[in-house]
């Protein structure tokens, strides 16, 4: 956040017209199978809603600009960057986060494969990698190593676990039968 607010005449006076207003809009989301109701301001992102209001902190904030993939969740089974979604715009949507993948104490096959392949180090990009991998499997466009690598490229990993992540995903793809 930078400090020099420019005197753009096109915006003059606009701040005051809405300043102080905290316009809450009712929405509902189905998060990990549970219906949840919220009254939220339109500027709340899905990521911040999940982390700060639902305390589902498995979804990570790594850049807040769609440049790292740590915030990846599944909406209606499709992977998206939750940092670039205003929650109000997804009223009624089904959202799956990392917390919703395991079946009770039984890990999801991707989670199990990530542990076995040591496809993580610090663990911070990991939920996003796994949700992204689930989205990749749902999409059905990847079967080769090259395809997995290209179609996982929206998830950065600074620890450099890439080869293990790709191996874990390939294992699950192969078990499921390549689409």
């Amino acid at each position, binding site marked *: *956040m*930078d*400090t*020099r*607010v*420019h005197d*753009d005449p*096109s*915006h003059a006076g*606009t*701040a005051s*017209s*809405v*300043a102080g*207003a905290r*316009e809450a*809009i009712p929405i509902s989301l189905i998060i990990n199978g549970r219906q949840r109701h919220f009254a939220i301001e*339109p*500027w709340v*992102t899905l990521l911040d809603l999940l982390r700060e209001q639902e305390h589902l902190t498995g979804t990570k904030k790594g850049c*807040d*600009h*769609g440049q790292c*993939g740590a915030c*990846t969740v599944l909406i209606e089974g*499709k*992977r*998206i*960057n939750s*940092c*670039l*979604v*205003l929650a*109000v*715009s997804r*009223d009624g949507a089904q959202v799956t986060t990392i917390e919703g993948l395991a079946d009770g104490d039984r890990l999801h096959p991707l989670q199990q494969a990530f542990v076995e392949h040591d496809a993580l180090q610090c663990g911070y990009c990991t939920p996003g990698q796994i949700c*992204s991998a689930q*989205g*990749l499997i749902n*999409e059905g*466009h990847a079967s*080769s190593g*090259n*395809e997995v*690598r*290209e*179609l996982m*490229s*929206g*998830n*950065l990993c600074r620890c450099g676990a890439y080869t293990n992540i790709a191996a874990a995903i390939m294992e699950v793809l192969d078990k499921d039968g390549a689409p």
Partner: protein
Amino acid sequence: MNRFSYVRAAGVPEAVHEGSAKHVRFLAGGTNLIDLMKENVERPERLVDINRLPLNKIEDLEGGGLRLGALVTNADTAYDPRVDRRYPLLASAILAGASPQLRNAATNGGNLNQRTRCYYFYDPATACNKRDPGSGCGAIGGVNRIHAILGASDQCIATHPSDMCVALAALDAEVRVTGPDGDRVIPLTEYHRLPGDEPWRDNYLRPGELVTAIDLPAEDFTSHYTYLKLRDRLSYAFALVSVAVVMRLDGDLIREARIALGGVAHKPWRSPVAESGLAGERASRANFIAAAHALTEGAVGQGDNDFKIELARRAIVRALEQAAAGTPQSQTDKRVL
């Protein structure tokens, strides 16, 4: 991010009505708008959410073309069997861009309207005529590795970041818009502006106008095409230079070639001179080099980006070779063919 009011448009007329007010932005996929709002670069007073409008279909047009709804996501467009079969260049270009997550959210209309990736545009602490008219251009004389070599002005050297639009330009797509004064159709190549002395205007949309669809003409460019993208890492990076080529060949005689350049100007860059120069000529390296020079005629570097002139020429030649050979660039196998 500033404060704004939010309304979900129930229909196109309502959206147009809402969108005609000042300081309003349409919200579709949001992948660029929300990004810019977080940087306080975009500060709309009101967002009109158009995601529920019935603009989310891909439909066949009479005569064999295809209409891409403005709200169809980039991913659904690229993987649509009709697009994949009839317009493989477009599918390839879309898949060369952004990431799967972003393509799942970003829409076709939004892709046209995404704003530049210029560092200075994104940083309100710096000068930028596009963001803050009259404040100057930080990129001129600054860090400008990613900036324009063609069509820039002394006010702005930003580039349009889209991959999809480069393919659409080569395909002679048309943009359908609706607005307070009714519907109109804008050729893609005339949709985006050059910065000139009004760099804050990215395109020729009028206030309140809403993109409803992109029409692809019925033409067969399924054999000789390619989308070649060169960038600073092998995926998930904006183009330094990209080239979309479609070609019609008769043996090794070029009947028609269209070449669009991305990452080098404020809009996808085409050159009638370069293209007509190829028509009727042989598909030879010498002719491709001549076309590359014609297409980059007048290119000017800004310092850091001087290399882009030569890179663009080489990329054009390679893309023409790929298209002529019928070996389009794969977006998953990173070997450049």
